């Protein structure tokens, strides 16, 4: 996307609001309304991948060491990952502001 949606004027829209760039929806920040976000405690994590499987978004991925983490650009703060983690390695932290 050349411009962010909030920068686009009506003249910038393609005819019929057609989106000509495949996959551009991934550039849309959908994680901007969460009231809490997950924080990982790597010491407790056993890398079982349950959080990754259960995230409805799905926005949890693995880092280079095999630990899991959420991409907060998309995370909705639903808390399912924290609830499902068998070792309580994840806890939810309130958003500020």
């Amino acid at each position, binding site marked *: 996307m050349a411009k962010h949606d909030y920068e*686009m*004027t009506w003249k910038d829209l393609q005819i*019929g609001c057609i989106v000509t760039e495949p996959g551009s*929806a991934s550039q849309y920040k959908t994680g901007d309304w969460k009231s809490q976000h997950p924080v990982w405690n790597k010491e407790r994590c056993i890398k079982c991948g349950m959080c990754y499987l259960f995230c409805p978004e799905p926005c949890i991925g693995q880092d280079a060491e095999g630990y899991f983490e959420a991409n907060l650009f998309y995370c909705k703060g639903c808390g399912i990952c924290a609830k499902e983690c068998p070792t309580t390695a994840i806890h939810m932290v309130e958003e500020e502001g």
Partner: protein
Amino acid sequence: MSKRVGMEASFAIAEAAKLAETEVVAAYPITPQTHIVERLSEIVADGELDAEFICVESEHSAMSACIGSSAVGARTFTATAGQGLELMHEVLYVAASSRLPIVMAVANRALSGPLNVWGDHSDVMATRDCGWIQYFTENAQEAFDLTLCAFKIAEAPEVLFPLMVHLDGFHVSHVVEPLYLLEKEEIAGFIPPLRYPFPLDPRKPVTMGAFAPPVLYTESKKALEVALRSTKETILRVWKEFGDAFGRYYNPVESYRAEDADTLLLAIGSFTETATVAIDTLRDRGEKVGLIRLRLWRPFPFDEVRAALRSAQQVIIFDRAISLGGPGGPLCSEIKSALYQEPKKPKIVSFIGGLGGRDITPQQFEQMFARCRELIDKKIDVEYETIGVRE
């Protein structure tokens, strides 16, 4: 050369869709539109037109299928009426906002209830704001000519809007009339091939019908509105080209014996032809009356309407629809709003009639002129009056 034939208006529209080399027809039969698609299905079945004829289970599906076929860049035609147009309602907006140049004939019909299959303009008025180009035709010749023009207008690269060709249910759709049909050779080249800029194509994927959140919806509507208004230029150009080529000219607002008239009648659709008989009678009696026929409905021809009504003292507006609980005739309220900011404006008298297929005679049009004078002379202020209603 074009040949003069006797033909039902519905069949003439089917002939126009054939001459335009329509590629896809998706339609559901509904009175009084049925003969249009019935005839087209025969034309396709007989191999006279190489098109896909998609039989669907409802008008909602018909318009949805049309959106799909238009989205891949196929020339697409359908037709409907009344309840059918209503069942399409939500999808009509999608066709417009997606800028898909679907051409649709609408045999104007009353809306239930009570159930009524006959003609009036309730269906048109209910789809007024859906973003389609819309114009009226008043006889078989106009229905034929303006269906042909519709493809050229809708598909013009600077337009790309769906377009409704309105004709009165039964009063036009089912009447056999003499008309000049154009031959294939004559029309050759008149409608260039459709080149939709972003057709659905796996080799060049695009997303159509994506959602627009609050941050973009307003911009999308502004873009659509500006684009729809700007189609008028092309509409005028195509009508002029058609006139130059075939000798029959069309205009957004047309008049009959309106020069020097102090009282004008403004109406839409086929009843304007009946009204000309009344105008002739009254003119013979020395009355300065004339007729204004509104052909282009969307985009609304504000300048032409204002110019046509500028010198009249009184304007009678005849509606074949009613805005229940609202300002009466929808046509009348649009004309009034077009004139509101004008420094000098005529008095406006509103009549509603011809609902659900009821005829309006020339004598009744004469009575409207007489009643208009009476209301103005006696300074009687009424929102509107209903013609021929039994009290």
